[in-house]
Every structure is written in C-alpha cells, then in structure tokens.
C-alpha cells in the first residue's frame, strides 16, 4: 500500500486536487449546472484523449512532433462520414489504392532478385529515378479522367435513413472503362517497389524469411483489388441499405482504419528518411497537414457538413434515465435532473473504451512492452534485435488510427469541415505536455484535466459574460503552471 501511494503520488495529488475543486464547484454552482458542466467536461476530455493518445505515443517513441495529427482526426471524420452518407467515393477509390498497395508490397519479394542485378554503380541512381518517374506516369494515367468530385459529391445535411436511403449515391464508372485502371496502379506500385528495393544494391539486408509472408500479402491484396473492383457499384448500395446503426459502427471502423493507413503511409514514405533530421520531420508533418487540408477542400469544398446521428441515438424525446434510454434510444437523457444529449455519453464511453484498450495493449502484449521500452531507450530496443522501424510504422498507424476514430466519433456532433482537427490538435499538444511524453495514462489524466478546465472555464466565462475564447486560451495557463512544477509533465519520465 505504501508502495502504491509512493509510485502514484502525482496521480493521487491530481485526483485530490480535482476532488477538492469539484466539491467546491458543486457547492457554489448547484447540482444541475455542476452535473451538466462535468458531463460536457468529460465529453471534451474524451475527445482530447483520443487525439492526445496517439500524439503522446508517437512523440514518446520517435520524438516526432506530428502536426498532421489534427488532419488525421479530420480525415477520419470525413472518411467515416462519407462511408455513412455516401460510400460511392470510398468504393470508387478503393480498387485503385489497394492495387497500388499490392504493387508496392511486392517490395520484399522483389528485393531478393532486384538486388542481384548487375548494374553499374553510377547508373543505379538514374535507374532508380527513372523507375520512380515511370511509376508516377503509370499512376497518373491510372487516375486520369476519373471524376472524383462527382464521386464525392454529398449534400451538406444528408439524411440517409428516412426517405430514400440511396439519394446521395453517385454513379460509378462502368467496368468496361474502369478495368485497366487498377492494373495500371498495380504496375505503378510494382515499379516503385523495384525502385525502393534498390536495383543492383547488394549491400542491402535481405530478409529471405519474409518472402513467404510477402507472397501471402501480395496475393491477398490482389484478391482484394479484384473484389473491390467488382463491388464498386453494388457495395455502396448495400452499405446504404444496411441497418443504420450497423453502418455507423462500420463507419467508425472504416474511419479509424483509413486514418491508420494514412499514418502508416506517411511514416513509411516521408517521416522515415528524415529520422536523422528531426526538425525536418516536424516540417514534413506540417506540409502534409497543409496539403491534405487542401485536398479535402478540393473534394468537398471548404464547407461545413453535418453528419446525421445513427438512429440508436436519435429517437425524438427524452429518456427519463439512463436505463430507460437503452430501450428508447432518445436524443437526450435525463441524468440527475440534467438533460444531456445521449450521443455525448457515447463519446465518453468511446474514450473510456479506448483507454481500456490501450491499457491492455500496452501492459499485456509484446507490442506494448516494446513501445514502453522504446519510449525509454530506443537504441537499446534496436540492439536487442527488434525491428524498430516496423514498430515505428505500427505506432504511427496506431496513433493516427486513434485520432481518426476520435474524428469520426466526434463527427455527428461537430460540423465536418477541413479545419475541424486544428483546435483538437492544439489542445492535444497541451494535453501531451501536461501528461508527459509517451505516457498514455498521462494523456488520459491531462485530457480529463483539460476537458474539465474547458467546461468549467466556459461556465465561468458565461457567468461573467466573457467569450468562450477566454477559457480556450486559459488552458495554456494550466500548461504553464504544470510545466513550472514538473517540466517533464505529470507522468513524463523521459528527459
């Protein structure tokens, strides 16, 4: 017991302080406003946590300050919303992307042969460049002429489950004109794979044992390509005609997965070559954030979209209590005399589930063990023979996936727009600083603290007729105080 209180001193202090402040607030504010403010604080905190968890892991393990995290949040929201409202875009793009991936994943297979080619050293670089250029050309021809904007077009407030569920659907290109595109993408990816494998470069390490796994990956991806080509038209319809709640769950998954894929692709392509120049990694993430925000605006205009809530949370009326809500699924629930939107409770639940999931992952799996070890001493993990690069990519994917899940989770109650992630990213940074780098539990506590601060700050601001901007800016003060007391953050161990 003594040990527990010693090793969790900070935690106890923080909770003690929160308790005191909470009690104080309870008696000065009265029950109703206290409960309401606390609940919205929890909601905000849960969202902050979803953003900050990925940030803190990525930063703790790789020292990469990911400025594209807010963008991942936004991409998650957009992709999930698209899947939920008008999946034609996703289904239309999927074959191309998967085909390209299939090509690129042939990298490990090709390496065995490609590195043995007899190429003069002076020509290697040129051959590599030529291959990349060719891949680019093939890729461009592959996508040329597809009207992505048309595929993506969606109404600002689309209601997908009352009248005609298929109203948003956009037409796909017929198979007769489409079939060659995935082929070209596959080719483009394969060319790129050859270039990466390093033709004639015999110094490269060969992973012959991976070859079998490589074959399986490529085969699976090619099969997936074929399937996705075939379901381009029937898929979106089937999704839209599906039970809306199930569709929502699926869109959570899709959003998170696309976010994770986005993160992995970013790490593998842009971040990885720059581990020797950390400052430039930050700049690259900044550039990625910039570019993808623009891409989203190209596809969906700089508009604010509204995603409808799944019917599970949107039956009209108010449930008398939480238990009653489970049979009525109303929009709002009465909690201790406070009318509270039921969807926000779901966000809180999602945050808690994510925390539990992360805790299990970090404490009971080998992957989590490696992450915890890597946060402390990256090079030692490498010296043990663990492929850190793969771990880096996976952690980046994990972080991005969590942020994207946060994004699609938040989409039904905040406007879906290109800069929706920015504010969350900023607060996510503050949470990470407060909680300490690389500590997911620190991020959880930091998010809770900041969420509460925002909620109660807004309450106070309203009371003194100030704008919510004041409470938003004041979270910086909390950060400053904690940094003065503990420069490495509440739970940070890394110097």
């Amino acid at each position, binding site marked *: 017991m003594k040990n527990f209180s010693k090793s969790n001193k900070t935690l106890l202090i923080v909770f003690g302080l929160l308790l005191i402040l909470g009690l104080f607030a309870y008696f000065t504010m009265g029950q109703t406003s206290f409960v309401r403010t606390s609940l919205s604080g929890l909601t905000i905190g849960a969202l902050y946590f979803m953003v900050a968890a990925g940030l803190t892991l990525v930063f703790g393990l790789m020292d990469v300050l990911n400025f594209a995290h807010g963008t991942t949040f936004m991409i998650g929201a957009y992709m999930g919303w698209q899947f939920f409202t008008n999946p034609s875009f996703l289904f239309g793009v999927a074959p191309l992307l998967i085909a390209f991936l299939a090509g690129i994943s042939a990298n490990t297979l090709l390496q065995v042969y490609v590195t043995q080619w007899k190429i003069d050293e002076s020509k290697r670089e040129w051959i590599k460049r030529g291959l990349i250029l060719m891949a680019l050309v093939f890729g461009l021809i592959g996508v040329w002429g597809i009207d992505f904007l048309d595929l993506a077009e969606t109404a600002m407030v689309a209601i997908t489950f009352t009248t005609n569920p298929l109203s948003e659907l956009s037409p796909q290109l017929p198979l007769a004109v489409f079939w060659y595109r995935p082929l070209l993408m596959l080719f483009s990816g394969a060319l790129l794979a050859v270039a990466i494998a390093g033709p004639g470069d015999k110094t490269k390490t060969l992973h012959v044992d991976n070859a079998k796994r490589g074959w399986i990956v490529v085969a699976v991806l090619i099969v997936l390509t074929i399937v996705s080509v075939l379901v381009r038209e029937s898929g979106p319809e089937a999704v839209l005609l599906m039970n809306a709640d199930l569709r929502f769950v699926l869109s959570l998954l899709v959003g998170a997965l696309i976010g994770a894929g986005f993160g992995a692709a970013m790490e593998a392509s842009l971040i990885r070559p720059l581990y020797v120049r950390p400052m430039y990694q930050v700049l690259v993430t900044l550039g990625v954030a910039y570019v993808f925000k623009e891409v989203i605006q190209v596809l969906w205009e700089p508009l604010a979209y509204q995603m409808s809530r799944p019917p599970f949370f949107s039956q009209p009326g108010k449930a008398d209590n939480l238990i009653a809500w489970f049979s009525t699924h109303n929009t709002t629930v009465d909690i201790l005399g406070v009318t509270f939107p039921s969807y926000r409770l779901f966000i809180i639940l999602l945050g808690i589930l994510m925390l539990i999931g992360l805790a299990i992952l970090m404490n009971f799996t080998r992957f989590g063990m490696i992450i*915890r070890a890597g946060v402390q001493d990256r090079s*030692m993990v490498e010296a043990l023979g663990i492929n850190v690069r793969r771990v880096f990519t996976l952690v980046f994917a994990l972080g991005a996936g969590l942020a994207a899940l946060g994004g699609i989770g938040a989409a039904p109650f905040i406007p879906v727009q290109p800069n929706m992630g920015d504010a969350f990213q900023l607060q996510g940074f503050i949470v990470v600083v407060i909680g300490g780098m690389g500590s997911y539990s620190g991020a959880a506590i930091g998010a809770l603290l900041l969420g509460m601060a925002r909620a109660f700050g807004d309450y106070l601001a309203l009371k003194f007729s100030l704008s919510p901007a004041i409470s938003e800016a004041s979270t910086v003060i909390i950060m400053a105080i904690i940094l003065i007391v503990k420069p490495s953050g509440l739970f940070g161990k890394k110097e």
Partner: protein
Amino acid sequence: MDNLMLNVSNIQTFIGQFHILEGVSLEVPKGAITVLLGRNGAGKTTTLKSILGLTPPREGIVEFKGNPIQGKRAYDVAAMGIGYVPEHRAIFSNLSVAENLKIAERKKGDLDKKADFIFELFPDLKRLYKLPGNHLSGGQQQMLAVARALVPDNDLLLIDEPSEGLAPILIQQMMEAIRSLSSKTTVLLVEQNFRMASQLAEYYYIIDDGKSVQHGKMADLVNDTETVHRYLGTAVGALGGKR
C-alpha cells in the same frame, strides 16, 4: 580463419562532425573472452556500438562469422546472434524484471529455455522477477542487463563495463558469471577495471585515441607494466579497484 567470431578491420566512425574511431581493427577468436582496454574517451564504447551498427562506421569492414555486417541496421545485426550489454546498466526501468527479460526474446519460448541457466547465474533475479526495473539496486540492474543479453541464442556478447560502479563483492559475482558464460559464447568485453579484465580475459586489445594500438595475450600484458602505464595510465596504480 575459421576460428574467428568477429573480424573488424580499420573502421572509421563519425559522430556528428567528430571523427571518433580512426581505424580500429580487432580479431575476436571463438569461445574466448577478449577485452578492450583504454582510457576514458578512447573509443571503446563507440567500437562496440559500431560493431552492432548503432553508430554505423563510415568505412571499414566488420565481419561476423565470416559475413560482412557493416552498414546493416542494428536490429538485423543483433538478430544474427549478437547480444549487447550497454554501459550504465541500461535496463528498461519502467518494465518489470520479467518484461526486461521477455522483451529480449527473438523466438517465442527463448526465455523459458534459458530461465534455469539465467537464474543459476544470477539467483537474485528469480526473487525480483515481478518487480519493476527501477526498484532494483545498481548491482541487480547490471545483472539484469547481462541476463537480458543471455535470453536469445547469442554467439557473441558485447559487454560494456560490467563492473562499473559495483561493490567489490558484486564485481566478484559478475566476474564469475561472465567466466561461466564464456564457456557457451564468445565475449567481447570493455572493462576499465584492469584487475578484473586481467583475471577474466584471454586476449586484449588496447584502443587509444580512436585507434587500436596494441593487442596480444592477456598473460603477456600483465607483465608489461610499461605498456599498461602508457595506455591505461593510473589504472595500474589502482590495480585493485575502480579508477
């Protein structure tokens, strides 16, 4: 040269703009303990790191069991069968003892296979098995660091200053442990404690100013006070203890 475990020839390593190793060559024979001697900052630790690929050499050749390994990523090199015990007892202090050992597994079940051997060498670890790393004393941490390198099947162990900051009685225990492991694997040791080094090692290399300057059998060096004095300085005066 079939009996060579490791062959390092003329490696040049830079850290940032600093030229740290300016030509280190080593031949580490199979099944023996070879020790790297030299002053502080001579480049002994960098030599180990360069072998492993943590600070990859810009030039030169490193061969492990006859295969060139220079330029490969550290995890690939390590996975070929090289264990590394870094200086300053770099264990993962936020992981438990069990996890510290478990993370070193390269194949599932490595730890189960080696557990008896490890606990025989370091009986303390069995008792501390569930404790987090930062609750261990310095000596226990050092033992854990060595034990960690024993979990997978390593053909070569690179051990960096195992006696650093240990109490004399623990040094003795550590020496016993290293000696008994050398019957199973080859050991390349960096050691400031000349007494420990001289009792353990069969071969020695002296590194000075980033270059390997002299090598031979340990037995010869012990009698060569002049060399010892020239390259190891005060170490000879403090032959008994840590300088």
